[in-house]
């Protein structure tokens, strides 16, 4: 079915724009960039319709990549229902965001470069989801990381942008470290890296009680996933990644790339099911991330940072779903999240566009009238994320919370509290931006329709996306969702969301003094939260600085230059020293020389006469 065309067309688009972009007009660049993604989307649709119900995976093998001994990895693509969902989300949302970006980036320099990178990202993301083995997945995995790096650092004249890009890449590398180690173990254990083979063999394994090989594999995969999907402890790069242009934040850091970790864990579900300890680890990491990010999100003032922490928090939700065994719920949340979070970011982008680059919510306010469409679509996204029924977020979040309750009630309760906080800070952002009086000196204007169009589409999806039967569709791949439909529990979580919205309304519309006084009252805690629990600083102080200083002052200066080179040069120096002593023997005096001769003669005679032979 020519699966390879799906990623390759964006790649071709990327290459065209990269090589010739400087000489092309914006229209042509747009046509190439958007066209190629759109083509991919259409090709996905065509492929999927051609493949029918997809009960079994459809695999296409192209050519051998690495072949050594028993290791044989090929460039293989496969489509099953999980991939199909991901493909649709990636190409669909991707197309919308490309269109949006054409408007958003219209006045930026490096236009061609931006679209080239964006297309390249599509290539790698599609490779990631299409890969039929871990190594091809890894290609996409690293590739999206690269594009993320390039796009975060798009404004590379700004040091912070460069720093953020580098940070993203390196933190991801730490995750990849785990991922690659997991691959080595998988190959060692199963003799193959093909998903089909591995999952087939994994199903035959017993469930592990302690930390066995499979658990180790899963924990390492989890490490990889925490990097890519910004989970504790490797989430730190994502908020910084907001240095990139907003469409990038929407596409890469909200809708698609960051969910790669979720996809990968879901893809390895057969393995995880054999490793309950690892499952617990996934769930707990998800929960901790969800709560922590939500708390930090409460106190952020940069609109994109709020949504970034929200993304981290929502990703935590997805991990929670995976950890409690509700894989399809997790993927379901990936889908709905893609809609509403992309919308939130794009809407925020529209706001920022309207305010000519202003991102601090304290300088916004009162935009409701000036940018009504943006307001409307953002509101749609907000109710979706807040879990207000019957919008999309409600359905997916509900599925997750119920599954969590089935696993352990306390997880459910933590999830509910987080849901409340989510509703609070999202609406806080809405209220601070659109309500009240304008606090900035700008002359806001509504965005052009090339930007608003995609927003509207996404808004529709955010509202109605919950009715797409994703979990049911995924059953053949990820198994059914076991959820008792407990109305009380559903109601509780909905109420939590509504309480969050209500408090937010109280604090930021009715009585704007309250947050300030709360902040004063809780001084220390507030500072802690406002500064994101000083996690970055903690990493700097405990890991980065010691490594940098240690490398400079200990390894380079002391070990390399001092000890090793010192020894080498010392040997040289010592040799010259010996030479200095030896040449002193040549005093220049004939009689001394004669004394040497006599001494030598004496020794030689004595030795030969008395000492005898050595043998």
């Amino acid at each position, binding site marked *: 079915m020519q699966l390879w065309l799906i990623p390759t067309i964006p790649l071709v688009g990327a290459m065209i724009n990269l090589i010739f972009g400087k000489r092309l007009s914006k229209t042509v660049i747009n046509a190439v960039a958007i066209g190629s993604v759109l083509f991919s989307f259409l090709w996905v649709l065509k492929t999927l319709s051609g493949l029918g119900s997809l009960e079994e995976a459809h695999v296409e093998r192209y050519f051998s990549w690495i072949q050594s001994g028993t290791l044989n990895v090929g460039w293989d693509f496969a489509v099953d229902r999980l991939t199909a969902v991901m493909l649709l989300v990636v190409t669909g949302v991707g197309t919308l965001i490309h269109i949006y970006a054409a408007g958003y980036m219209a006045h930026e320099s490096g236009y061609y470069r931006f679209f080239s990178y964006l297309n390249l990202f599509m290539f790698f993301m599609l490779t990631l989801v299409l890969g039929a083995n871990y190594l091809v997945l890894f290609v996409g995995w690293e590739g999206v990381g690269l594009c993320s790096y390039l796009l975060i650092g798009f404004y590379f004249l700004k040091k912070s942008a460069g720093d953020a890009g580098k940070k993203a890449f390196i933190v991801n590398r730490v995750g990849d470290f785990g991922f690659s180690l997991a691959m080595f173990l998988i190959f060692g254990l199963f003799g193959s890296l093909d998903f089909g083979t591995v999952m087939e063999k994994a199903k035959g394994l017993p469930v592990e009680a302690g930390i066995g090989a499979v658990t180790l594999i899963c924990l390492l995969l989890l490490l990889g996933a925490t990097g890519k999907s910004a989970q504790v402890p490797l989430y730190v790069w994502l908020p910084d990644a907001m240095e990139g242009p907003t469409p990038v934040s929407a596409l890469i850091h909200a809708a698609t790339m960051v969910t790669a970790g979720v996809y990968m864990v879901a893809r390895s579900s057969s393995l995880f099911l054999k490793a309950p300890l690892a499952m617990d680890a996934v769930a707990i990491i998800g929960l901790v991330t969800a709560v922590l990010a939500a708390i930090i999100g409460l106190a952020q003032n940069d609109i994109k940072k709020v949504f970034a922490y929200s993304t981290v928090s929502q990703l935590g939700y997805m991990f929670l779903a995976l950890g409690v065994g509700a894989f399809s719920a997790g993927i379901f949340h990936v889908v709905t999240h893609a809609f509403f979070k992309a919308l939130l970011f794009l809407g925020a982008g529209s706001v920022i566009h309207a305010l000519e680059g202003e991102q601090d919510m304290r300088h916004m306010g009162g935009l409701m009238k000036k940018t009504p469409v943006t307001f409307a679509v953002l509101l749609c996204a907000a109710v979706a994320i807040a879990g207000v029924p019957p919008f999309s977020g409600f359905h997916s979040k509900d599925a997750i919370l119920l599954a969590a309750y089935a696993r352990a009630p306390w997880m459910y309760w933590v999830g509910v509290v987080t849901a409340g906080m989510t509703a609070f800070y999202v609406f806080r952002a809405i209220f601070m931006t659109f309500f009240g009086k304008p606090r900035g000196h700008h002359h806001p204007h509504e965005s052009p329709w090339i930007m608003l169009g995609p927003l509207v589409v996404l808004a529709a999806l955010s509202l109605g996306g919950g009715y797409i039967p994703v979990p049911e569709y995924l059953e053949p791949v990820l198994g059914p969702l076991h959820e008792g439909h407990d109305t009380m529990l559903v109601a509780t979580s909905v109420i939590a969301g509504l309480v969050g919205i209500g408090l937010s309304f109280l604090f930021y519309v009715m009585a704007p003094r309250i947050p300030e006084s709360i902040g004063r009252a809780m001084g220390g805690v507030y500072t802690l939260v406002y500064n994101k629990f000083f996690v970055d600083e903690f990493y700097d102080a405990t890991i980065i600085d010691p490594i940098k200083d240690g490398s400079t002052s200990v390894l380079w200066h002391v070990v390399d230059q001092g000890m090793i080179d010192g020894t080498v040069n010392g040997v040289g120096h010592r040799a010259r020293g010996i030479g200095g002593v030896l040449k002193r023997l040549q005093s220049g005096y004939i009689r001394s020389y004669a004394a040497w001769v*006599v001494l030598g003669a004496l020794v030689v005679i004595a030795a030969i006469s008395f000492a005898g032979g050595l043998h």
Partner: protein
Amino acid sequence: MDAILFLLFATLAVIAAINLVVQTHPISSALSLIGVMASLAVLYLLLGAEFLAAVQLVVYAGAIMVLFVFVIMLLNAGAEKRQHSRSMMATVLGVPLLAGFLALIAYLIRTNMPKTSQVVFGSFKQGGPQDIGRALFTSYVLPFEVTSVLILIAIIGAVVLARKEI
């Protein structure tokens, strides 16, 4: 009688040699050396080396030593100046080295040479000029001829090093 002669001239030779070593004026040393040579000539006779004894006196003590004395006179070489010896090696190691050296050699000779073979004057009669001459011009004709090259070199050397202009 042989023994007394040996002891007498051996003592003389050693005393002269010591004098050579301890005298600071080269002329005294040269004269001491002649004394040594003369004593040795007597010992050569005792050992039956008549021809050598003669050559020792005529050529060695006579011609060669005259050359030495001549040069000493020519250069007007006075007594050595008393100055601090700068050859560390020679100063520090000299005496123990020499004592060790002599002890070693003497020990080897004492322990390894047969003590029975006595030197009796006149028992060896082939040391005359005739025998020497025959040997020189038969078995040793080649070294003999080659020494002529040596003499030639010595002449050239003296010429090269001593003449005024090249």
